[in-house]
């Protein structure tokens, strides 16, 4: 992260959290903003019985991980220092490296590593609580960027 006062960081987390809790599907998945930096975001999602994709193992469905990655990517874009006012996912590719351990919270970290006037490029990783086992999934995405109209 770049030079940053803790006050500014706290303000960004509050703003991001407000943003996330206004999104019905993020509420339905109990997503929580963990941190927000300049063009970076981390959001967590607790394990829930509703989200299980394989009833024999209790492993969360890949689709729920997609929703978390997508949200975190969007949050990273909106927190970019060039201050976009809106974003939408254009393309998101997810690689599933391993099954997430049942009953563990999944946390996604996204970095908006490049922006043009109208496109933002994002990388993201999702971990369960066994961080030493490496990510559960990684993602790459392109997001649309809407900027405040220049005068």
């Amino acid at each position: 992260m770049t030079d940053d006062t803790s006050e500014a960081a706290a303000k960004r987390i509050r703003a991001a959290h407000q943003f996330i809790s206004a999104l019905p599907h993020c509420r339905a998945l109990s997503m929580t903003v963990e941190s927000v930096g300049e063009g970076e975001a981390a959001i967590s999602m607790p394990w829930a019985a509703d989200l299980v994709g394989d009833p024999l193992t209790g492993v969360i469905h890949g689709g729920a991980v997609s929703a978390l990655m997508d949200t975190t990517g969007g949050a990273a874009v909106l927190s970019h220092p060039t201050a976009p006012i809106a974003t939408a996912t254009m393309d998101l590719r997810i690689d599933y490296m391993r099954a997430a351990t049942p009953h563990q919270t999944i946390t996604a970290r996204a970095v908006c590593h490049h922006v043009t006037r109208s496109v933002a490029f994002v990388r993201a990783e999702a971990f369960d609580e066994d961080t030493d086992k490496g990510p559960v999934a990684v993602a790459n995405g392109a997001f649309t960027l809407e900027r405040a109209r220049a005068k």
Partner: protein
Amino acid sequence: MKTPEPVQVVKQRRDSALRGLIDGVPYIKFLNITFDRRGDELTGVLHYDPKLIGNPALPALHGGVTAAFLEVTAIVTLSWSMLWDDLEAGRLEPEGLTHDALPRLPKTIDFSVDYLRAGLPRDAYARARLNRSGRRYASVHVEGWQDNRERLFAQATGHFLMPQRTDPDG
């Protein structure tokens, strides 16, 4: 000559096998996805609910919901095609088909979603095409639409690891 099976017997067998495949998966229920069946062709139906909204300003479906819907449709269509031959040849007993009795579900290796337009706050439909379905790996393309079949709101391609099959006779 063999008499053809009565139509209700055929339907009952196929529908109960399909139910067995879907019913046990909590996440499919959570998103309220059902499947329409015409012969062996499946169409996924995502029933609209306000909790599926990602952007309340538009409002639009959450991109993650769209991805999940397409992924569920891909996995169910893939599993269904795996089951079909055994089911029709009478090697699978459709009654009481539960997840304990069924082969394991395919695992997603990667999934790439192309968002073409915002998902509107109403039902969505999806159909998957198996571009390659081998013993070990499968490649599946899925198309999602809402009002017009020709105007897709999203499409996706994914690769899947097939479950190791056990000989149904052995």
